[in-house]
C-alpha cells in the first residue's frame, strides 16, 4: 500500500526547484550586492565626507602601486550565475507552475466574505444576500454552461460555509477536521516522478543519497571544523600563533629586535608560507616594494604586502601578553614602513612618506621633520624634496599639511565621580588634545577653565568613561597610495609602567579611532589666538578632543606618585607619534565624618567631636605606615646610588657640565 503520490504529471516539482534555487540564489545575491556597494565606498568617497582628511589615492596622484589580480567586482562569474539563476526562477514561475488546487482548504469566513468576529445575525443576513446572487434559480439565463456550473459550485460551497457556522453537526466537523464534510483524505506527495523512486533507477537515488550523506556531508562538516580549529579567535593560524609564542618565550634578551629580524619571523608564519615563495623571493618583494619600484613586481607582491600589517597586529596582541613593549614599538614602526612603502631603517621617514619625493635627495640633506618644511621657500623645498614640477610640489605640501599630530593639552589619571585618585580604585587616563597641522607653529595658551569638562555630571560617563571616545567622528582612511588595501587611520599604543619598564599588566593595545580633524585647516592666527569650541554657545574654533584610556589595574594601595609612560603610534603616518610621561598621584580621600555617623547610627550633632577623635588616629596610623614605606624606598635608592657613585661622583660632573657647549659645537 503506497501512501505517497508521485509527481507524474509534473505539477509540483517546479515548486521544489524554486525552493532549492532560492536557497542558493538569495544569499549569493545579497553577498554580491554587498560587494558592489562596498566597492563604491572607495577611499575618495569615504574621506571626502570626513573633514580634514587626505582625499587622494594612487590614481588621483598618478602613482604606481601593486595591482590586484582579482577580477572586476561588478562583472564576474557570480553575476552570470545570479542572472541565469533568477532567469530560470522567473521562467519556472511563469511557464511551469500550474495554479495549485487550493479548494481543499476550507475557510467558511473567507467563502462568505465576512470577518471571523461576525455575530450569528450578521452571518445570516450576509448569507441571504449572497444566496440571492448565487442561487441556481437566480442565475441569469444568458450564461454559458461552464459559468453556470461554476456558479452552482460556488453556491454549494456557500451553503457548506453557512452550515459550518450555524449547523451543529457541520460546525463540529469543521472544528475537528477543518472541513464541514468530516475527515478528509490526507495524501503525502513527493515532488519526484515515480520511476526515480520505485523503478530500476531507484539505485541512482540511493547512490545520490549515499554520496550526499555518507561523503559530502562529513566532508563539508569536517573541513569546516578543521578550519575553525586551525585558527585562533583572532583569526591567526594556530601554527603562526605557536611560532609567535615560542619567539616570546625563548627570546634572548640580549638580542636587539630589528625590523629585518621581525620580517624573518613573519616569513615563517603559515600566512606567508602558504603563498609558496622562498625567503629570497620574499626579501626581494619587500625590497622592491619599499623602494617603490613596481616596474617588475613579483606576482605575489600584493599578497605579501597586504598580509603583513594584519600579521603585525596579531603579533602585537600576543606580545602584549608577554608585556614586552620594545618588540611592539619596532613592529608598529615596521607596519608604518610597509603601509607607506618606505625603507625599514633611516631617519628621514617623515619626509619620505610624501608623494613624488626623491629618496636619494631627501636622505642627503639634514631636514627630517614635516614642520621644518613649512619654514622653507618653494625653491628650497624643491631642493630638499627633489621635486621639480610645481604642481607636484603643491600637491605634496597639501598632503604634508594634513598629516597632523596630537597636541596634548592635559593628561591625567581620573576616577569617575572623584576629584582625586584614591587608592585601589578603578581609574582611567584622560587625554585632552588638539589636532595640529605641521604647518602650524607653537601652541595656543589655554586657560584651565577652558579645558575643564563636566563629565562627572553625566551618568553614562560615570558608568563607562570610554563613552567620550566615540564623540568625535571616525578617522578617515589613511593616505597610503602605495599600499594596496584601504586602512582606517588610528593611533595604537601601550601604557608602560616606568618602574619595571613593562607594559601595564592585563592591558590590551590602546586604539584611538575617533578624532575631530577639522582643525587641520586653521590659520596660524586662529591657532594661536583661538578659543576652545564651546558646545553650548557654538563659539570658538579649537576643537578639544577627549580620549579616555581605561587602566586595567586598580590604583596602588598606598598614596604616592607613580610614573607611567604612554606611547601612541599612528598606524600609517610617521612623525605624529605620541610619547608622554604620566604621573598617577594617588591620595587618600579626606575623611568623611557624616558617613561614619550614619553607619554607626549615631546622632550627627552629638557625636561630632568623638567621631573626629575616632577618625584621626586612623588617619595617623595609615599615613604613618605609608610615610614609613616611602621613607624606606627613598633610602634604598640612595643606597644604590652611593654604592655606584662612590668613585664616580666627581667625574660625572666633569662629563655633564659642558654638554650644552658640546651641543653648540655640533650646531656650528
Amino acid at each position: 500500500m503506497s501512501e505517497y503520490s508521485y509527481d507524474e504529471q509534473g505539477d509540483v516539482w517546479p515548486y521544489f526547484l524554486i525552493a532549492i534555487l532560492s536557497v542558493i540564489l538569495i544569499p549569493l545575491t545579497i553577498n554580491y550586492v554587498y560587494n558592489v556597494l562596498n566597492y563604491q565606498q572607495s577611499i575618495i568617497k569615504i574621506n571626502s565626507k570626513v573633514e580634514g582628511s587626505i582625499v587622494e589615492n594612487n590614481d588621483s596622484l598618478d602613482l604606481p602601486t601593486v595591482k590586484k589580480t582579482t577580477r572586476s567586482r561588478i562583472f564576474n562569474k557570480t553575476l552570470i550565475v545570479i542572472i541565469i539563476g533568477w532567469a530560470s526562477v522567473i521562467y519556472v514561475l511563469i511557464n511551469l507552475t500550474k495554479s495549485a488546487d487550493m479548494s481543499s482548504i476550507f475557510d467558511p469566513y473567507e467563502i462568505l466574505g465576512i470577518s471571523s468576529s461576525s455575530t450569528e445575525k450578521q452571518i445570516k443576513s450576509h448569507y441571504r444576500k449572497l444566496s440571492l446572487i448565487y442561487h441556481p434559480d437566480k442565475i441569469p439565463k444568458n450564461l454559458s454552461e461552464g459559468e453556470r456550473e461554476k456558479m452552482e459550485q460556488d453556491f454549494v460551497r456557500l451553503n457548506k460555509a453557512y452550515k459550518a457556522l450555524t449547523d451543529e453537526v457541520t460546525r463540529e466537523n469543521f472544528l475537528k477536521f477543518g472541513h464541514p464534510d468530516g475527515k478528509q483524505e490526507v495524501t503525502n506527495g513527493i515532488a519526484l516522478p515515480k520511476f526515480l523512486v520505485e523503478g530500476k533507477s531507484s539505485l541512482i537515488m540511493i547512490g545520490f543519497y549515499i554520496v550526499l550523506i555518507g561523503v559530502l556531508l562529513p566532508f563539508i562538516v569536517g573541513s569546516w571544523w578543521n578550519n575553525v580549529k586551525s585558527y585562533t579567535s583572532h583569526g591567526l593560524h594556530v601554527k603562526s600563533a605557536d611560532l609567535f609564542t615560542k619567539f616570546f618565550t625563548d627570546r634572548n634578551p640580549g638580542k636587539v629586535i630589528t625590523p629585518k629580524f621581525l620580517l624573518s619571523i613573519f616569513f615563517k608564519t603559515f600566512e606567508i608560507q602558504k603563498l609558496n615563495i622562498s625567503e629570497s623571493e620574499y626579501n626581494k618583494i619587500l625590497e622592491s616594494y619599499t623602494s617603490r619600484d613596481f616596474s617588475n613586481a613579483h606576482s605575489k607582491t600584493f599578497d605579501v604586502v597586504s598580509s603583513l600589517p594584519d600579521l603585525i597586529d596579531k603579533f602585537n596582541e600576543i606580545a602584549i601578553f608577554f608585556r614586552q613593549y620594545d618588540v611592539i614599538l619596532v613592529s608598529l614602526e615596521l607596519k608604518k614602513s610597509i603601509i607607506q612603502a618606505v625603507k625599514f631603517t633611516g631617519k628621514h621617514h617623515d619626509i619620505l612618506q610624501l608623494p613624488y619625493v626623491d629618496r636619494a635627495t631627501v636622505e642627503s640633506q639634514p631636514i627630517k621633520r614635516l614642520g621644518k618644511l613649512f619654514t622653507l621657500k618653494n625653491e628650497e623645498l624643491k631642493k630638499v624634496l627633489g621635486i621639480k614640477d610645481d604642481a607636484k610640489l603643491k600637491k605634496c605640501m597639501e598632503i604634508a599639511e594634513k598629516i597632523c599630530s596630537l597636541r596634548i593639552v592635559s593628561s591625567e589619571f581620573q576616577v569617575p565621580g572623584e576629584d582625586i585618585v584614591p587608592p585601589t580604585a578603578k581609574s582611567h587616563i584622560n587625554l585632552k588634545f588638539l589636532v595640529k597641522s605641521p604647518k602650524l607653529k607653537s601652541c595656543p595658551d589655554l586657560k584651565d577653565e577652558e579645558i575643564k569638562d563636566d563629565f562627572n555630571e553625566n551618568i553614562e560617563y560615570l558608568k563607562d568613561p570610554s563613552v567620550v571616545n566615540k564623540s568625535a567622528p571616525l578617522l578617515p582612511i589613511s593616505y597610503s597610495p602605495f599600499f594596496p588595501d584601504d586602512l582606517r587611520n588610528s593611533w595604537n599604543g601601550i601604557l608602560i609602567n616606568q618602574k619595571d619598564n613593562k607594559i601595564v599588566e592585563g592591558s590590551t593595545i590602546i586604539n584611538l579611532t575617533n578624532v575631530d580633524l577639522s582643525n587641520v585647516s586653521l590659520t596660524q592666527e586662529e591657532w594661536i589666538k583661538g578659543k576652545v569650541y564651546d558646545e553650548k554657545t557654538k563659539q570658538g574654533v579649537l576643537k578639544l578632543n577627549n580620549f579616555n584610556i581605561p587602566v586595567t589595574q586598580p590604583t596602588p594601595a598606598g598614596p604616592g606618585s607613580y610614573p607611567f609612560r604612554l606611547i601612541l603610534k599612528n598606524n600609517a603616518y610617521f612623525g605624529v607619534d605620541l610619547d608622554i610621561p604620566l604621573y598617577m598621584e594617588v591620595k587618600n580621600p579626606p575623611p568623611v565624618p557624616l558617613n561614619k555617623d550614619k553607619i554607626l547610627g549615631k546622632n550627627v550633632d552629638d557625636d561630632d567631636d568623638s567621631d573626629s577623635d575616632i577618625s584621626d588616629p586612623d588617619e595617623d596610623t595609615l599615613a604613618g605606615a605609608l610615610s614609613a614605606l616611602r621613607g624606606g624606598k627613598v633610602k634604598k635608592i640612595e643606597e644604590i646610588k652611593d654604592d655606584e657613585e662612590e668613585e664616580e661622583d666627581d667625574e660625572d660632573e666633569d662629563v655633564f657640565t659642558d654638554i650644552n657647549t658640546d651641543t653648540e659645537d655640533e650646531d656650528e
Partner: protein
Amino acid sequence: MEVTLQYNNTDKKISTPSTDEKLQKEIDQLNTLTSEIISNGSDVPPIATPENFNKDLSKMIKKLYEGGVQSFKQNKFEESVRQFTIGIEMINRRHKFEAFQGTLQELSMFLMSRTDANLKTKRYLDAFNDIDMLLSMQMCTPENFLRRGVANYFLGNYEAARADYQRGLAYDPNNRRLQDELETCLDKILEENGDYL
C-alpha cells in the same frame, strides 16, 4: 634539524661543518665551558660562592679601574677608554664557573665609566652600546638614563633621548641635570620641527 657533530679526542672539543650561526655560537659556548672544567682539574666545577671569587684578579681589576679614573681626571680620555677596555677584557677572562654576581658588579662599574669616557671622546655609538647594555642589566639609576639620553641626543635620536630623560626623572623627579638636559632636548626637538623657540 639534523646536524653532524665531530668530537676531537685530543682537545676535547666539538665542531660542526654546519654554518648555522646560532648553532656555532652554542658549540663555542659549550667548548669554552668544557675547557674551563678541564683546566680546573676536577670532575665537577666548584660551587660558585663569594668566598672562592678570585680575589687576586679583583685586585688587578680594581687597579685598572683606578688607573682609568685617574686618566679621566687628568682629561686623558683616550687613555681612560683604553684602560677600561682592558679591564672589561680581564673581567671576560674570569673563570666561567665563578660567582657571576661579583663579575656583574665589576662589569657594570667598568661599563658605566667607559660610557663616560666614550662620551668625552665623542664616540657616541660606543657609549650608547655600553650604557644600553648596562640598562638592560637592570641598572636603573637616574644617572644611567642620563648617560643613555646624552648618547642618544648626540646620535640625533632626540625622541629617544627625551624618553630616557623622562624615565630617569621617573626615578628621581628632582634631578637637576636630567631636568636641564630634558629642556635642551625638547628645545632641539622643536627646533628640528621648525617650531618657534
